[in-house]
């Protein structure tokens, strides 16, 4: 009778001994794992100080483990439908995917034919254009479709240096910059860009269009804030979107609206963590040909401690007395602009994109900017071409004067704008959207005329049928018939001009990718090499075509155009 109570403790004691042994074996094993001793010490120390904390941490660990396991068997797993093998086979046999892309509709085909076919140099001021149907070649066409504003692409010095570099290093760079793909000339062009624009350092990319989508995500992650001008180009829209940060839009160039947004945000921001904050805008808007009030913008961003991203794709080489972009034009130091993005493929007459700013910012891109790390360097000769253009601009600069390379461009831009602005015959037909200093003339139909023709204020954008179709994945609804027709009528103007040996162009947009509303425009790119007489001629030709197309256009005519497209 008295043996039993004695035996139980013995049993418990031996169990405890076994458990303790096991525990020690476990601990020992754990100690063998690299770093295990450290962890154990940590637990021991923390337990001594605060036993409750150990419990709490164990609970936390359990929750974390549960969370990890749960995320593996995510939503998908849970709402999966149980199917037999036969049902799966049937479903597979029934599945009919959509074609990989929607084939071009009959009424869209004209878009394909409207791409100008150029023979020989594309960027020069006089080009030969081939007719897509007859194959006829029309020589010596005045080219207002090229963004080579300073004609650097055909500059003899630029060409000569580029050729020298091809003779020294071949064409391709054959490797990413971090793996033996950085040539001396790449380093040089980064220095040149930084010096020319007045920044600490620079970095270059293989293509201008890829630059914003690669730069912004380096500095913007979930939880960061970016406030974007509601008129930026597609590349910046995408860059803001892909960064997954909180995006706010302010009305195009409306700094009051920007301040209002910042004012509203201020309280939240003061309490929240110090996340990264940016304002994104353009030096010369791709979509409008105007610029923000940089002075005020800089004051605002300094006041609210936001950083500024300025896309100078269109403004470097075209604005400011020496082509140093909007800050030079506004008398503001480059230091005020934390991130500057730009293109070497436009006024600099080369190829590729760049970003300049402070050393820390550039250094981070070298390590983590996708389009820099995972892509081959720019061909060395392109770097040389851009460097040469910069040197030409710098070498001819004179204190207090407009750079001789820019002066003709500035004058031409102003002249062409004035011709259209002062035009009597066009007064009721079109409006000039761009500012006089813009080398790109944006001409859109007069809003009253558009209204009378039954055309909407803009196409696409938030809440539009196209963006709804995108959300739902209805590719057959990506098409806007009125947009198509309006663009087609503008193309008629372009075609008529081309018959008279003037090549102008229009906005070409991928409507379903644009997040912001779009209005079709005729686009004329100025060039430093045009003479006044040539520009007068261009104006005359465009005026005639506009008048003959829109002079007495009615709603019925628009319908007629639409039906022409369908036949």
């Amino acid at each position, binding site marked *: 009778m008295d043996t039993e109570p004695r035996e139980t403790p013995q049993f418990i004691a031996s169990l405890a001994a076994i458990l303790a042994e096991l525990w020690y074996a476990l601990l020992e094993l754990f100690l063998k794992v690299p770093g295990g001793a450290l962890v154990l010490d940590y637990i021991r120390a923390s337990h001594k100080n605060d036993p409750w904390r150990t419990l709490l941490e164990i609970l936390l660990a359990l929750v974390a483990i549960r969370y990890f396991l749960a995320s593996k068997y995510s939503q998908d797993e849970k709402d999966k439908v149980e199917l037999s093998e036969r049902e799966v086979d049937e479903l597979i046999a029934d599945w009919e995917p959509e074609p*990989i*892309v929607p084939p071009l509709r009959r009424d869209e085909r004209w878009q394909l034919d409207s791409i100008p076919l150029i023979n020989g140099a594309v960027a020069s001021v006089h080009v030969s254009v081939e007719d897509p149907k007859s194959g006829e070649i029309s020589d010596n066409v005045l080219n207002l479709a090229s963004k080579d504003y300073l004609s650097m692409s055909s500059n003899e010095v630029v060409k000569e240096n580029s050729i020298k570099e091809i003779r020294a290093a071949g*064409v*391709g760079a*054959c490797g990413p910059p*971090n793996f033996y793909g950085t040539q001396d000339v790449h380093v040089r062009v980064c220095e040149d860009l930084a010096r020319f624009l007045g920044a600490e350092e620079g970095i270059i990319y*293989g293509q201008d269009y890829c630059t914003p*989508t690669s730069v912004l995500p380096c500095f913007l992650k979930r939880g960061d804030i970016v406030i974007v001008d509601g008129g930026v180009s597609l590349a910046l829209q995408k860059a803001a979107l892909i960064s997954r940060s909180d995006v706010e839009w302010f009305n195009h160039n409306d700094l009051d609206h920007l301040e209002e947004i910042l004012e509203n945000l201020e309280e939240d921001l003061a309490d929240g963590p110090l996340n990264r904050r940016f304002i994104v805008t353009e030096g010369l808007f791709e979509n409008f040909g105007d610029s923000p009030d940089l002075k005020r913008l800089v004051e605002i961003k300094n006041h609210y401690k936001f950083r500024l991203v300025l896309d100078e794709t269109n403004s470097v080489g075209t604005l400011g007395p020496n082509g140093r972009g909007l800050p030079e034009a506004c008398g503001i130091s480059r230091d005020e602009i934390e991130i500057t993005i730009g293109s070497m493929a436009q006024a600099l007459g080369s190829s590729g994109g760049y970003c300049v700013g402070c050393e820390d910012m550039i250094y981070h891109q070298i390590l983590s900017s996708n389009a820099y790390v995972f*892509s081959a360097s720019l061909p060395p000769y392109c770097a040389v071409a851009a460097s040469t253009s910069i040197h030409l601009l710098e070498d001819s600069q004179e204190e207090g004067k407009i750079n001789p390379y820019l002066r003709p461009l500035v004058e031409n831009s102003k002249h062409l704008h004035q011709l259209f602005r002062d035009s009597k015959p066009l007064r009721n037909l079109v409006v000039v959207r761009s500012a006089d200093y813009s080398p790109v003339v944006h001409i859109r139909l007069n809003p009253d005329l558009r209204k009378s023709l039954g055309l909407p204020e803009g196409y696409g954008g938030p809440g539009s049928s196209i963006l709804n179709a995108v959300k739902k994945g209805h590719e057959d609804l990506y098409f806007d018939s009125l947009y198509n027709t309006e663009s087609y009528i503008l193309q008629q103007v372009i075609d008529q001009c081309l018959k008279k040996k003037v090549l102008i162009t229009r906005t070409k947009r991928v409507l379903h990718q644009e997040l912001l509303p779009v209005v079709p425009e005729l686009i004329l790119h100025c060039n430093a090499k045009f003479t006044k007489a040539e520009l007068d001629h261009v104006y005359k030709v465009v005026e005639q075509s506009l008048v003959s197309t829109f002079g007495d256009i009615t709603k019925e005519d628009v319908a007629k155009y639409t039906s022409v497209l369908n036949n």
Partner: protein
Amino acid sequence: MSFNAGKFNPSEWSAHVPSAPTDDRPEEVKAEMEFGKLTSQKWLATAKYDAKKSFKAPIADDPPYFVVIMTYLNYLVLILIGHIRDYFGMFFTPQHFTAMLSKNGYPPWYASFESFYPRRLKARMDDCFARPIHGVPGRYTACFNRISHDYNKHFLYDGTSTECLNLSSYNYLGFAQSVGKCTDDSVAAVEERGTSAGGPTDVSGHADLLRNTEKILAKFVGKDDSLIFSMGYGTNAHFFTSVLNSKCLVISDSLNHSSARFGIRLSGAAVKVFPHNDMVALERILRESISQGQAKTHRPWKKILICSEGLYSMEGEYCDLPALVSLKEKYHASLFIDEAHSIGALGEHGRGICEYFGISASRVDIMMGTLTKSFGAAGGYIAADQWIIDRLRVDFSTNCYGEAPPPAVLQQINTSLRIIDGQLNGDEGKERLQRIAFNSRYLRLGLKRLGFIVYGNDDAPVIPMLVYTPAKMPAASRMFLKYGVAVVIVGYPATPLISSRIRFCVSAALTKEDIDRILAISNIVGDKMCLKFGSGMAGGEKHPGDWKKGIHPRWSLEEVLAKTPEDCRKEMY
């Protein structure tokens, strides 16, 4: 040769990256440095796939346990020390952490954890990365000499450079040249057409040179038409948005290139990832995705796109194209193949992965590739049926918003394509193709026989040689450089944590004797650094069946050099 060697004057060290010295050697000498003459007709091979055998994934040899443990330990120490240095550094020397600390109410540029790896691990071997070069990255590449006094924070240059045998550049067919037909044509293109393309293709115009090159390229890969863009990365980054939406599914290989992953993310499509080259997993995902439909709603997917690469640039492995094609046909999905590294480098006529496997290009829906690697140019392309290209030509955002490829680059592509195709310069194209096939096979087999663990398929011109321990990466790279060979090292995060490697990119510009030299140097490096862990299971044994008996291939250098050049042309293992 070294430029200005012997100058070595410490007072002339400067942080300024020097400019290229003038090179006034005669043209023949330069030509030989860029593209070595074939030394014997014996050193040619043809890369062909035996369609009768089914595709076998290459065997990946495993390192011994102690290597694995040492590697993890290595990382552990690096990470611990890194954190300790960060912790105390931010406290005591904040001037070194300006970008990671908030200042005057401005948030840091980036968080310290975002940059932990590059600062604390990569920075230790930064001397192996981004070394500036000058001149043609051909058979040899001229690397600037530099030193660092502050643990790779800054480098000092003395203006001299050393010409190293080049196994680092993507120059598969050796078209990186400053003499010859390609260069002459490209120079003429600059003279005639200038340096810039003037703007986006759809806006500024579709140049005759671009049209012509697109047609030649399309014909070369076996498609109706193609689009050429000025950057390969950009091609992938913006392609997927043009064809997919959020109701579409992409099934993507786990090792796909960052550009494709970025592009898919931008498109908003759903993504499922299958383990690298695992066709069983792919089929399982296909069956499940089609039968289950979209998440939550269970509506059928609008499109399913399988996304793979022709030749994986970190592994040197092909995709299993026969299986991919048959799966995509069985399940009516679409297939996208990124031929960045396979176009020009694989197949009897260099037409890429389809030709190599003898599969008609019409069975791949979208063929993407880059023009950076085999053609000595730059850029990327999409080739497909006419109706697809017609749609993309007006709807591809790069065509409307981004720059078109510049003239000299297009001309380089155009001329090199015609050389490969035999339309120009007679048999030159054929010789280049046969040389890259031979060089790849020879180097790979040679390394295996010496005892290295090497990944990849026999014909692949990318040869990753495993070193495992992170500390051995920079050590090996420096040693190769000391012996005059430029190699690329890749480690985490571009590869799995454990499998750091040296990547040899073979070129047709190398001669058989160059490969001999690389083998000899690798042999020294391998012995010094204890890199020979090959078990023989992936080939390289002396006698068939050796590895099963536990005999590892450890041929002496003499044996390798004596027998491998002949052996490598046969199917041995």
